[in-house]
């Protein structure tokens, strides 16, 4: 395969293996715990539903507000969508941003770029290998999340539609890739020696935009959903809308990510070590 260096791809995966495993299992076990406690919170959900029925009979505005946020979960999947899947989105997005930024920044900060850039390998191949290494790491990361969530569901709610969990995983994986490549692009346009924490500036505003867009009736604010890749992965909205996929949002961010990747290739060809 002439568009990448499999030796360098292997090196990148090897270098990031330990960190990837720590992030994967740290978040995955937290998600497993969230699913595992569902039987304990199920009664609480029932009590809350009864409380909401009473408030509804009193025409309380609180009901409308609760509906904006997806209402009270009525089954294990809705509970996970509210409590776990959003957690996975945000923390996974942060992780994706850090590894995307680090793919460029790490070698420059640790000064290993000086020996890598004098190898007989084009910058395009180096970058392709980095891009594929990110895709591989995020794939493993997502598989571990979904695997541990599945274990939780098999234990506490085996009748759950497991294709929904796989769908969450697939949507999240695509979103993680977008965030990671946007962060890689950000690193490409910044000077070396910046902290990887800068990359967190990417997922946070996007996440907040999706939360605001889904919690309002204002048309202008609702339009914010198109400006965030968290929208097409938003689990509660997807479940409540009978699994209608936000295709426009997905296509906007797929296009945006591709533009960033093209710009990154052009930029990386001429990138200096200082």
């Amino acid at each position, binding site marked *: 395969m002439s568009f990448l260096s499999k*030796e360098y791809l292997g090196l990148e995966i090897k270098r990031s293996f330990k960190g990837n495993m720590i992030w994967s299992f740290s978040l995955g076990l937290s998600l497993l715990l969230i699913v595992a406690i569902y039987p304990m919170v199920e009664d609480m959900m029932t009590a809350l539903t009864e409380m909401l029925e009473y408030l509804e009979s009193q025409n309380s505005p609180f009901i409308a507000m609760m509906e904006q946020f997806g209402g009270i979960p009525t089954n294990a999947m809705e509970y996970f969508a509210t409590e776990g899947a959003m957690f996975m989105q945000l923390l996974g997005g942060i992780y994706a941003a850090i590894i995307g930024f680090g793919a460029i920044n790490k070698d420059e900060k640790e000064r290993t770029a000086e*020996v890598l850039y*004098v*190898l007989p*390998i084009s910058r395009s191949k180096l970058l392709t290998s980095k891009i594929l290494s990110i895709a591989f790491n995020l794939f493993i990361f997502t598989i571990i999340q979904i695997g541990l969530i599945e274990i939780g569901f098999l234990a506490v709610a085996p009748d759950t539609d497991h294709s929904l969990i796989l769908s969450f995983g697939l949507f999240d994986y695509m979103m993680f890739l977008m965030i990671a490549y946007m962060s890689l692009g950000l690193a490409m346009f910044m000077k070396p020696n910046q902290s990887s924490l800068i990359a967190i500036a990417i997922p946070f505003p996007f996440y907040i935009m999706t939360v605001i867009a889904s919690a309002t009736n204002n048309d202008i604010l609702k339009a914010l959903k198109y400006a965030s890749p968290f929208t097409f992965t938003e689990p509660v909205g997807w479940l409540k809308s009978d699994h209608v996929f936000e295709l426009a949002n997905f296509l906007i961010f797929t296009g945006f990510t591709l533009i960033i990747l093209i710009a990154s290739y052009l930029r990386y060809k001429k990138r*200096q070590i200082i």
Partner: protein
Amino acid sequence: MIQVEDLKKYYGSIRGVERVTLHVKQGEIFGFVGPNGSGKTTMIRTLLGLISKDGGSAKLFGKEVQIGDPDLNKDIGYMPSESYFFNEMKVKDIISFFKSMRTVDDSYLSMLIEQLDLDLLKKFGSLSFGNKKKVGLVVALMHQPKLLILDEPTSGLDPLIQSRFLEIITNERKRGTTVLLSSHVLSEIEKVCDRVALIKDGVILFIKTMDEIRQNEHKRLLVTPNHHDLILEGLSFIQDFDQSSQYAYVGDVNLLVQFLAKYKFIDINIRNVGLEEIFSIYYQKEDVK
């Protein structure tokens, strides 16, 4: 092999190199000497296409150097002034990765590992400064490149490894390898280099063969007590210390000894002026200019 003409590089308003012109011929070991901040590393990084130039030209193998152009790299071995590899990896894995990126003769690689006494099983991050440098040397040399660019290669190495390294690059020269050797250690420049360039404040002050430099070599004579009346061809008074007078001498040492025998001294010290002192004299001269 290396052709640099009027090379200029600034980092914003800070000078990297101001005006560098030098030509290195194939098969020679070319020393590149200068104080810290003189522009040695900037010139090397420009030559390797790691940073852009602001003016002039830099060619390797007759081809203009471009940033991110990998074609030239297969014939170059480079060792930066500080050795940075992947801290979390074992030395053997680092060597194995770089070997996979090059065409390497296994027996030569084994010889390098043995000669430089490399510990393959330790993680790179746990190595001392000197041992990290040894990994850098093996990576730079392993593919027996046509051109070796070495930035301060022996700093931090113990004397035995330094001497083995010098032996290795001397053997490489015999094979036709060209070496650009940037160093502060003038004794090693003296031992192996054919020519040497002195750079200061981003400007090349001179390029001379080692023979030309040695022609300027002289002896220093220190006589106690003070004497200002020693007159001999080639002998020139420099300065007085407390009880002693210092002279420079260029010429036959036997004539000097015969001449000094006519006088009565408490003590006489005759020593050779080394390359280091010669360079120091050049520095001072250029400062005066």
